[in-house]
């Protein structure tokens, strides 16, 4: 039987009925129409469905029941851009040619977002390790790593500029 739940997605509360066995990925895509959340395997193995929970915790939305995160804050790729400006990670993925078919891209960016919140200057090895749950078939990963490092650099630089007034 459906349970009425409220999810806060990209800053907005949504209240709707969800089956207890419905995954967060399906609810986001089909009920709330955040189709930027992709399903590559629907089994917790490819990372395409990655979203952020309560700030910067990257989770596999296909292996999370919607009812288990009721009342919590979810951030999807659609919520990353603030106003007209792309998020530094989004911009870096564009600038570094880290996007080909684009299907893994939203999950990659959300995972990278979580990484940079924990580690603002990751090495190549740290990026590979943290993002190992995200599979890409098109790029060979090289330019994705470059994009994450470039975004990290840009975020640090912007932060320093603000701190130095």
């Amino acid at each position, binding site marked *: 039987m459906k349970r009425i739940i409220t999810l806060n997605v990209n800053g907005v509360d949504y209240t709707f009925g969800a089956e207890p066995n419905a995954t967060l990925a399906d609810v986001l895509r089909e009920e709330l129409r955040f189709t930027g959340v992709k399903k590559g395997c629907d089994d917790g193995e490819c990372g395409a469905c990655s979203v952020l929970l309560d700030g910067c*915790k990257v*989770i596999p939305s296909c292996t999370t029941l919607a009812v288990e995160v009721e009342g919590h804050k979810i951030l999807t790729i659609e919520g990353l851009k603030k106003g007209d400006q792309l998020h530094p990670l989004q911009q870096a993925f564009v600038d570094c040619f880290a996007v080909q078919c684009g299907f893994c891209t939203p999950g990659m960016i959300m995972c990278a977002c979580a990484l940079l919140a924990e580690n603002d200057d990751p090495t190549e090895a740290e990026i590979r390790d943290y993002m*190992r749950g995200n599979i890409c078939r098109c790029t060979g990963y090289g330019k994705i790593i470059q994009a994450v490092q470039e975004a990290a650099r840009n975020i640090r630089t912007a932060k320093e500029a603000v701190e130095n007034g």
Partner: protein
Amino acid sequence: MALGTRTNFEYHAPETLAGALDLLSEYREDARPIAGGTDLIPKIKSGILEFSHLVSLKNIDELKRIYISEDGELHVGCCATLRETENFPGVRETWPALAAAIHSMANTQVKNRGTLSGNICNAVPSCENGPNLLVYDASVVIKSIRGERIVPVEAFFVGILKTCLEPDELLTEIIIPRPAEGSFSIYYKYALRKALDLAMVGVAANVLLEKGVVKDAKIALGAVAIVPKRASNAEKSLIGKELTDDVILEAARIASEEDCRPITDIRATAEYRREMVRIYVRNALRAAAGREGDCK
């Protein structure tokens, strides 16, 4: 084709541990508790489990606790996530095999939801955390409305996908004692890929040397028997001996020939697994002897 019928169930989200235990007692085999859900939810989707009541533990804060007690024991609540456990201050330094096992498994996303207790409750032979919990002499706290019992991890794993849990019981906490002063512990996960792979062979070791002589040695193997198990014959061959390379090679040989019963499956043949047991027990003992560099 694997398409089954997705399990449908009534959803309960009790606010207290007592409430959860009541539900498990009422519904028994027809209920399942859920912590992170990263093993349970794929099973729900594929319909290979049949149950009608899901008991969510999400509102029970006491189950999320990780702490180190006054006598240095690590206490990991059943709802503490794997990443919280790995990153808890002191874990990497004091329980390196635990940290290494958690680090090697799954991925960041899954470990932000999945739990250490969930991993051992799943009880697959390749269970990543079985070996280190064995070499650390860990035990689990099991509760029901009937009371509480503390069970050593050795007795917890009973068979493939089988633990000693009764249908009305919940594993609430894992207790990992502080390793002996001066001991060395390590975990190797060997798999075909460095990510997205179950352990083909898992080796944990906890060795205490006194002036180069083995005072205590615990070696545990994963993925090469129906449950994670201690390599007791190999351990016996080490006690009281100086940890020379000959002794190490002999212990590794014993572990691979006498202490495991690997199978052939889609990941590897039994022969290959046995050989990897030999190599990685060797590598673990060399590391303990301070010669990890020899292993490359």
